[in-house]
């Protein structure tokens, strides 16, 4: 049992830790909160012991849980005031790459918009998958993506 579990845990951390952390980060903009969310999501997985049909199904579930967990962190006043990424995140990026600008641009978008942009352009999810993960209709997701792209253009291409 123990060996199996160890194997299972390694697989989960290997495959999904970064995915969950990034999504939580883009939503909360705080590495500290993202770490907490990551732990909660894993804990939830342990508690529920869900049975998945496929790896896509598993990924979709973890994303959905992360989106929901991150909601509770966002309600604090501190989070609503913080607009940009924490220094701690940007500090990790090399200076010469213009990474911080695009990250901060995405981070400055409204919550639903930046979530949709992240899931579509980083996690390569389809509109349908995003609509299920975020609990929004497909047309709403399409418009979030469209408006998100427009906003980013304005922010990044003078």
């Amino acid at each position, binding site marked *: *049992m*123990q060996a199996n*579990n*160890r194997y*299972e*845990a*390694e697989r*989960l*951390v290997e495959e999904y*830790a*970064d995915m*969950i*952390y*990034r999504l939580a*980060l*883009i939503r909360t903009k705080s*590495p500290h909160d*993202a*770490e907490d969310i*990551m*732990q909660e999501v*894993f*804990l*939830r997985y*342990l*508690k*529920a*012991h*869900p*049975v*998945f049909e496929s790896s896509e199904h598993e990924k*979709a*579930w973890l994303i*959905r*849980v992360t989106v*929901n967990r991150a909601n509770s962190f966002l309600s604090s006043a501190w989070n609503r005031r913080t607009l940009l990424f924490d220094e701690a*995140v940007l500090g*990790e*990026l090399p200076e010469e*790459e*213009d*990474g*911080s600008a*695009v*990250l901060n641009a*995405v981070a400055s978008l409204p919550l639903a918009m930046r979530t949709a*942009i*992240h899931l579509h*352009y*980083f996690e390569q999810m389809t509109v349908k998958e995003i609509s*299920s*993960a975020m*609990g929004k209709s497909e047309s709403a997701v399409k418009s979030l993506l469209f408006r998100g792209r427009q906003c*980013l*253009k304005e922010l*990044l*291409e003078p």
Partner: protein
Amino acid sequence: MMERYQKAMGRIHAPASVKAKLLQEHTEQRPVGRRRVLRIALAAACLALLTAGTAVLYTAWREPAPDESVLPVGHSYEELLTFWRNPKETLGYYSSSIKAEPEIYYKTHEQSKGVQESDIQKTNGSYLWRIIDKTLFTFRLEGKDTVLTCKQTMPEGVIPYELLLFGDRLAVIGKYSKEIPGSDDGSNLRRTYVLIYDLEDPAAPLAMEPLWQSGSYVDCRMIEDELYLITQTSVKYDEEDWEEEEGFPAIHSKGDTEILEPEDIYLGEAFGSKWVSFTVVSAINTSKGEFDVSKAVLGGGSLVYASQKHLYLVRQRKNENEDNFSDLYRFSMDGKNSRLTGKGRIEGSVLDQFSMDESNGYLRVAVTVEKRVSLDPPNPYRPDFKYRVVSNAVHVLDDQLQVVGTVGNIQPSERIYSARFNGNLCYLVTYRKTDPLFAIDLSDPASPKVLSELKVTGFSAYLYSYGEGLLLGIGANGDQEGNLLGWKMSMFDVSDPHNVIEIAVQLLGDQKGGNSGWEFTSYDHKGWMISGDRNLIGIVCTERIDKNWKYSYRLFSYDREAREFRIMGEYLPKGYHARGIYAGDNCYIVSEKNIIVVDLESYEVVAEIDIAQ
């Protein structure tokens, strides 16, 4: 631009230290195997001994009990820490003490507030789950845009019965039975399955590992996320060929099967027959998807009533004189600490769950009493002849389950057809030719008394407190001779219990009598949607028109001013087992073949959605 985002984001990784911590935590959480359980049991036994020792000391010292009148105290450092570390549980505790919001969606009728009862469909206001045949259907409720989002079949051999829902957990109760190979006495392997689904994504419920408990399904209740499951099982005791433990009640979770320890089985009643029967009561934590505790009682009972604190099992019996009596078993519904807390015996037999009610520490039970009485003087030709005397009574029992008061001899020669308790009043319907509705005052537990009696034709098979001094009865319409004609619905004004009056009658379906009479007594009260808050009543109607049967679903409301029922709409479901549920501004009439969405302003059909099997 998007490539730049991908590049920048790709460079961000979860900190290695957190990953390592997760790995460590994850490895520590492992399923509990049988051996470990035994070890824990041993440890628990030692602990029990120790505690018993302490208890003696404790009483000797007579320390004052800690004050827990406002908030519970920590009884150990560990308890304090556990409390502190589980903020989610603290929140749950908090929210349960906040008064419930007005109902915006339909919940299966709860006899005791906060104690959920199972049903073939459940809604949380945004989604609806329904069992049709062997499949669990999930619908997103959006008025005319309602869609099927998921369709799931049950594991091989499991036939789903009913659903329960709390927060992000949906539980399906199902049966599983199979012939035991090589058995010549036709014995079956019967199990009751509990399939718990995680509703993190309510559109696509996700199955957790299944649980099962030996025996056929009897009933269940759910308080928040704690599910109480009752099953009955039996084993043939053959002295010649007997293997220890074989056939004893067992529970199964997370891949492990555990046979109940003898210490978990109460010696209820001995029947002396070869088949040893058990009633198993388990508390299941649906959040964790595991059993908290399982207890069984030899004999036990199959009629279940639950108050907010206790679960009662009732068994109807007869003595050698053919007089009927009932055995009562009381379990506390207290999660992990659930156990048997009382046993009692009363004269008479109990009709259904609505014949029982617990209030202020007293249990009140309405019964029909049957006795065999010798003739006086005896018939010289048949001195042994005894005739049967039937009457009705309401017993009041204290917390030791001892009868402290009884009002008996109510309407001799008739039987109880329905009962409903409301505070210190009990409404009782008996029937033979006409339908007397009794109001019984229970405010003095030692001397309950009949306040009034109202005679109308037919009888009510189900009584429902509609609010504001109104009592709704659904049942059969009859004539003065006692012939049953058809269905009817009555509204009683009970604002003055000394003078109960029938103020409105609505006949349902044809009133041609005949062989459809059986339906009146074999009904399921969960099939009717009744809400006093929303002033909405939904009922299925079957009528004969010429030679054809018409199957319809009707919505009614009650006009308090005009004192009459108003028919708001009649709808024709494509399949059977139509059940109504309201959520927001719509009512959804779900049958086995389609959903009819009705707008509750205009009562017009806004959409019909076919359910493809």
